């Protein structure tokens, strides 16, 4: 695959992902340009045995967003999981980063109660604090915490039951 094909296939995904992370459209456009420059530079090194193309592109996109905030010394604006990546350069979770796992995650979430599912999505997808979720759902803080803990327990079982795929690792950029 050449960089032009990657651009055609992934440009919209990358722009939408970056746009959600940064406030200004101009910043998102600049970051997207950086991402495609990096993809062009790194494409000769890409090994499909080590990472699926989508995972590889996503990882470069994510790391470029992190670099953007790190350069501005603006880590307050980063979500917790991205802020964590500033400290860690090695990641072993790429074996679960594929569409199949996302589909299985959806199936696991459907087994939760409506309230557990809402708390898990609002906390881990939307990045809301439990206090924000209390305001958003009308549940008491104690109820939110209980739903979070019970939902998380089910998610732990789902993730621990996932067999690890060999050979994939996060690309360092």
């Amino acid at each position: 695959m050449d960089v032009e094909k990657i651009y055609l296939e992934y440009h919209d995904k990358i722009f939408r992902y970056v746009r959600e992370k940064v406030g200004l459209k101009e910043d998102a456009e600049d970051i997207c340009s950086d991402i495609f420059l990096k993809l062009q530079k790194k494409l000769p090194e890409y090994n499909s045995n080590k990472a699926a193309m989508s995972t590889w592109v996503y990882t470069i996109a994510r790391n470029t967003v992190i670099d953007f905030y790190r350069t501005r010394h603006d880590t307050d604006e980063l979500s917790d999981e991205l802020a964590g990546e500033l400290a860690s350069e090695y990641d072993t979770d790429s074996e679960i980063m594929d569409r199949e796992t996302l589909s299985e995650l959806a199936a696991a979430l459907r087994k939760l109660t409506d309230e557990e599912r809402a708390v898990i999505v609002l906390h881990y997808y939307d990045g809301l604090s439990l206090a924000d979720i209390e305001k958003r759902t009308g549940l008491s803080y104690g109820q939110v915490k209980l739903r979070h803990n019970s939902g998380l327990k089910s998610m732990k079982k789902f993730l621990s039951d996932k067999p690890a795929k060999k050979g994939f690792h996060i690309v360092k950029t």
Partner: protein
Amino acid sequence: MDNTERKLKKLFDYQKFEKEPGLQELVDDVHGSLSGMRKLTDDELEYAAAGAARFSDSQLEKAGVNIKYVNGKKTYQATLSGGKSININENVAMGMYDCYNLSGGTKLTDAQLKDLIAQS
């Protein structure tokens, strides 16, 4: 944050990129059921497609936006210097955060807020 939470956050972040349809439908259902979301008009879809920014409630509150849920619907208010609260729309709320962010953490003056409302 334990390992499960870390992996879950990573998967959901990957979903923001990959947009796997089954999981996205589930996420949209959660959002829809909580906010009483109605079907978007064509103008609103066009605006969303143009890349409207989305910020968390806590980010907006830092910028001086007051968020309330009325009958399940999210409403925004800004407080003027005299203490009077005025209703604002989502565009203005997002604009308040953009300005707050660009200025390095300074909230808008009344005059700036009125300008922003006029432009929206």
